[in-house]
């Protein structure tokens, strides 16, 4: 995970919007990616990423410069996404009702696009089986290369909680995979 020039942070703290725009430019990909993995569709991910930067901008005066900025920023994104998922669950929207996720056009060929979409769909289904906090742990650990300590810091969890959540998430994802894509395993004679 990339870190920032501390001078940018000082400039932002002094009220320089231009410096924060540079921060948005630098961190848009990891923040958007985390939101996409958490929420499962492009529109919600865009809204969540925008809101994350807005919240970060408003809270910059409270940011401790000794803390890694990326951890702090992704922590805001993760908490926002967890809240959004919980709110959506409160509205009793079933997974089936959610629209098929649309990925941003990345100028790929048709076949590549389809394959890419399939892969993303598989990941989405895997992650949707997890609780919001477990999902955040998995996304931070596997896509953002956060250490256990960083996840603890970002999600305000103890180290044992992170460890058990990741363990549970791995087992859940494996089970999900086994249930959804068992044909390939059956062909290999691996399923009892």
């Amino acid at each position, binding site marked *: 995970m990339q870190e920032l020039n501390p001078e940018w942070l000082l400039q932002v703290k002094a009220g320089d*919007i231009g410096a924060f*725009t540079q921060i*948005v*430019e630098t961190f*848009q*990909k*990891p923040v*958007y*990616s985390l939101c*996409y*993995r958490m929420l499962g569709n*492009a529109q919600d*991910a*865009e809204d969540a*990423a*925008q809101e994350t*930067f*807005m919240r970060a*901008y408003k809270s910059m005066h409270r940011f401790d410069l000794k803390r890694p900025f990326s951890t702090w920023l992704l922590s805001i994104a993760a908490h926002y996404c967890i809240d959004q998922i919980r709110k959506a669950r409160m509205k009793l929207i079933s997974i089936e009702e959610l629209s098929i996720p649309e*990925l*941003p*056009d*990345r100028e790929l060929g048709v076949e590549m696009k389809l394959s890419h979409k399939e*892969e*993303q769909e*598989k*990941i989405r289904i*895997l992650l949707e089986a997890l609780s919001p906090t477990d999902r955040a742990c*998995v996304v931070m650990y*596997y*896509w953002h290369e956060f250490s*256990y300590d960083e996840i603890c810091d970002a999600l305000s969890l103890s180290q044992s909680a992170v*460890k058990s959540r*990741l*363990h549970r998430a*791995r*087992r859940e*994802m*494996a*089970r999900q*995979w*086994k249930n959804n*894509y*068992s044909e390939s*395993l059956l062909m*290999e004679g*691996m*399923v*009892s």
Partner: protein
Amino acid sequence: MNHQPYEEWLFFDPDNPKEQLSKEEVVELQEHIEGCPSCRSLMHAWNEVKVELELTPQISPEKGFTDRWAKRLEIINHQVRRKEALRVFLLLLLGVGVMMGMLIVLLWPSVSSPNDVFWSAYGRFINIYSMLYVVLTSLTTIFNASIKFVPMSLWIILMGIIFELGVIWIVSYRALTLPRRINP
């Protein structure tokens, strides 16, 4: 078949030093997996998931994300400014309301009987006017009478003294009010 603790061990994180299996445990796990199709399929499923997680890259937002953010910030700032202006306006309105309320409380006796207030004010105005008229008439009479008794030369001396006093007053006033020269 009992799958514990093997199912637990399958999902240990090899990168976490606290979740390392000993050599004996690794052998034990391998022996169990060879004889247990359920755990074997789970292990293969997890291996495939791991590959998916490792190969699937981070996703970029659509182009122009930063511009969209800047526009959003501008809109929000505009809304905040409008809210602040509205808050100040409401605060002023509240202040005016409170002052009006206090004024009504203070003037309530007058407001409750406006007829008395009007005639009382009218009476006072007439009194003041009569007093001023009397004072002015008296002063005019004294002045007219004094002209006849005071000689012309005394008048000229009196006017001269008044003029001198006026000049002294203007000079003193200017000397006191002009800014002092400050040395660089």
